[in-house]
């Protein structure tokens, strides 16, 4: 995690720690800098500290140590209602006793904005999420997706520069979720707002964000744009957590800048890209994406190391074939191949040889 602290930093976490019970740290030494206008997703399994970070930013939790800055101003001691941060909650938290219009004008009323101004802003916000016709209804009369839009409009209606979203799409079905993902990113970019988005759904994170911060064990494991995160995971947790991944364990035999030779536990040797290994003799987990594994020799580079594999299972998935292999003692080695007219369909029991480009195979921490 390079310290990218710069002058245009909008949100900053500096050495932030958080503990609830005084014994264990939920957030350990968090450093994070966000420029204005960025869409940043905090991604991680539950219990990884991502929601706590969001709550500290919103002001509902206080940092045990460290400083959080917003637009260069420390906000540790500013109560939530003075931070001017919009927030969308997991279950929308629309006030059930108010109509949609009343829900939306609530933040404007507490800011003492005049009635005509208020009405104009509410109307604009509702139109923005295409819910203009629903102003008179109550939240319970709307579907989940509609409530989601209203929650979004309410978080935006008072024109905050920073909007936090805590798993806002968690309660929606898959199709609606995908539609809303697009709408939220579109809206965020159109309005130029800065968004911190928390989710445990990696697809959501990858498709929506400018950058993704992967949380585990109270730390950011890697923070990078989605493509970099997927293609160049910095450690085995990120490799495992983002996308589908094959892992082989072994020991580093030879190490140079661009290449590492790794001897797998069954004695085979493979070429890898050294990422997170420092010395010969170190244990390592080698990570290869299923779609980067080749089993047709003509597509491989000359001299590449090949591994013997036994086909265990062939799954037809429509657009791709998913084949489970047994490789070097790992029975869960997956390869994916595109469903093209000339594509080979492997049969269970078949003996094949597989290989890959050394740069697709990353030697990570054990």
């Amino acid at each position, binding site marked *: 995690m390079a310290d990218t602290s710069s002058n245009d930093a909008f949100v900053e976490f500096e050495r932030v720690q958080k503990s609830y019970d005084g014994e264990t740290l939920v957030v350990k030494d968090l450093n994070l800098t966000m420029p204005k206008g960025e869409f940043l997703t905090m991604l991680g399994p539950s219990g990884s500290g991502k929601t*706590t970070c969001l709550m500290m930013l919103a002001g509902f939790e206080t940092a045990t140590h460290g400083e959080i800055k917003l637009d260069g101003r420390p906000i540790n001691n500013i109560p*939530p*209602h003075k931070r001017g941060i919009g927030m969308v909650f997991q279950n929308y938290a629309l*006030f*059930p*006793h108010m109509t949609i219009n009343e829900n939306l004008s*609530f933040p404007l009323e507490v800011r003492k904005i005049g009635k005509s101004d208020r009405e104009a802003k509410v109307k604009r916000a509702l139109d923005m999420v295409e819910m203009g016709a629903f102003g008179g209804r109550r*939240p319970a009369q709307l579907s989940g997706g509609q409530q989601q839009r209203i929650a979004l409009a309410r978080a935006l209606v008072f024109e905050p520069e920073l909007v936090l979203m805590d798993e806002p799409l968690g309660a929606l079905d898959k199709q609606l979720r995908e539609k809303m993902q697009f709408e939220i990113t579109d809206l965020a970019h159109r309005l130029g707002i800065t968004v911190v988005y928390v989710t445990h759904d990696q697809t959501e994170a990858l498709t929506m964000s400018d950058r993704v911060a992967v949380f585990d064990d109270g730390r950011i494991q890697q923070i990078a744009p989605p493509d970099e995160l997927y293609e160049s995971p910095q450690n085995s947790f990120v490799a495992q957590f983002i996308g589908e991944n094959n892992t082989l364990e072994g020991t580093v035999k030879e190490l140079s800048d661009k290449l590492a030779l790794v001897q797998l536990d069954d004695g085979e040797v493979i070429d890898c890209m050294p990422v997170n290994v420092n010395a010969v003799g170190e244990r390592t987990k080698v990570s290869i994406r299923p779609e980067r594994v080749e089993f047709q020799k003509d597509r491989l580079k000359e001299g590449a190391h090949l591994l013997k594999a036994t086909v265990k299972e062939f799954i037809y998935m429509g657009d791709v074939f998913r084949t489970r292999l047994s490789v070097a003692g790992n029975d869960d080695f997956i390869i994916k191949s595109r469903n093209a007219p000339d594509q080979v369909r492997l049969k269970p029991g078949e003996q094949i040889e597989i290989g890959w480009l050394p740069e697709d195979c990353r030697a990570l921490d054990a």
Partner: protein
Amino acid sequence: MSDLKSTGQQTADAPTPEDALHEAASLDAREAAHAPGGKAAGPVLAADGTPLKRSLARALRRQKMRALALIAPLLIFVLLTFIAPIADMLFRSVENQIVSETLPETVVALKDWDSEGGVPPADPVFAALYVDLFIAEAQKLHTRLGTRLNYEKTGVSSLFRKTGRRVGRFDTDTYTDQITALDPSWEDPATWVAMMESDANRAALPFTARSWDRWTAYQLSEGDDPAKEDIEDVLFTTLYLDLRETGGTGAADARIAQIAAAVGDFDTVSLSEQFADADKDWLDPEVWGTIKAFAPNYTPGYFLNSVDMQKTPHGIEARPENQQIYMKLFKRTIFMSMVITLSCIMLGYPVAWILANLPTRTANLLMILVLLPFWTSLLVRTSAWKVMLQQQGVINDTLVWLGIVGDADRLVMINNQFGTIVAMTHILLPFMILPLYSVMQTIQPTYLRAAKSLGATNWTAFWRVYFPQSVPGIGAGSVLVCILSIGYYITPEIVGGTTGTFISNRIAYHISSSLNWGLAAALGSILLAAVMLLYWVYDKIVGIDNVKLG
């Protein structure tokens, strides 16, 4: 980690009964459209040709019967122990048959008497009263009637008792002596029995026949044989009165004609004088007016009484100022119930809030403290307040010891309204906390966070977002507490003194001490109506749908 409690269901997505209705409606519409040949759709038929409605009803009948059988024990229990007594009570509040049953002749005779005339009724009315009272005295019913009429006019009770003692010793033996002197066979009861078997005789002597029937019925009920008992003076009196009235024409018995011929020369006894002799109050037209006013079988008298009015011979009027207590008691009951409800809200709301926002373990522990009063006897709790509040009690002693209050002027905190309000607030508090707690539990903390993130201060967030959502709990608690306290009895009885008692204490007094059940029933009915009115008003303002008990 995720410290936002996950919500429950998304109400918007859950199917509601209304959805089902819409669906049913649209199904109907579709069926109508699909009716063969586009004809008006007839009843939908089941597979075996019977109308679908009927086969559905048949299929559901078994279920319904079983459900009914399951609730039957409770239903019967409630009917017998709750509905029936209430109905009986409501009936008692207007029922007034005692006058017309005890004084049937008098009630009829009084019909033509003008209660506004200012003069007591004429002799025939006294004759009717003589018969009625004589029989009532024998049956020991006259004191009951006296007590009943005493509710309406003081002094009637002793009037009846006094006259009852005298009615057997009236000078009416004059008639007996004169008649038996003419024919000694009149002394033989058997001849009376024989005479009264003839319809012609009965028609000639209507008053005597009626009195004879009532008298013999009483004798039979006592196990006596009318043919063997001495004939009372009262019957000779009626015989004389009948003969002087009708002349005995048409009578079959020759003895009757013999007496009828002599009756004009008889010495007479004025019954009004006899009564006046027993008690001069019988010449007071007010007494007669009261009897006449309460002669009907049903009377609004008890209800008028309950609202400090009275039915007098001259119509309905307010009671004298110094006798007006019930309106004051009703007002006090309502007022104090409101104060108690308000104090319960003020004290219970923060407690419920804390309970709802604590971790479950701690909340359950504290909940036991809330429920603890439920598990101790009501009397013990109330008596404890006596110990606390009395002038030589714990609180006063402490205040004196601290020097806040002088020993001479200890605070009066019990046997007044203050004592009742304090003790009842304590006793009814759980009824406020429990519904509040269960409603508050369903209010997610996210709402407050959302409000704050939208820029609301803690107070605004509470007042505009949290409080409106807790109103159903306040409503439920208030209805419970208010209705319970309006009818409360034990606690005001013990700590209320004279100024802190409720209408229910008065009802209890009339039930167990003054035995004026009719008034107690009327007061109870008014109380019931007041509670229902409260409920109705509440439904109009808050809406009973908004009441949540959990």
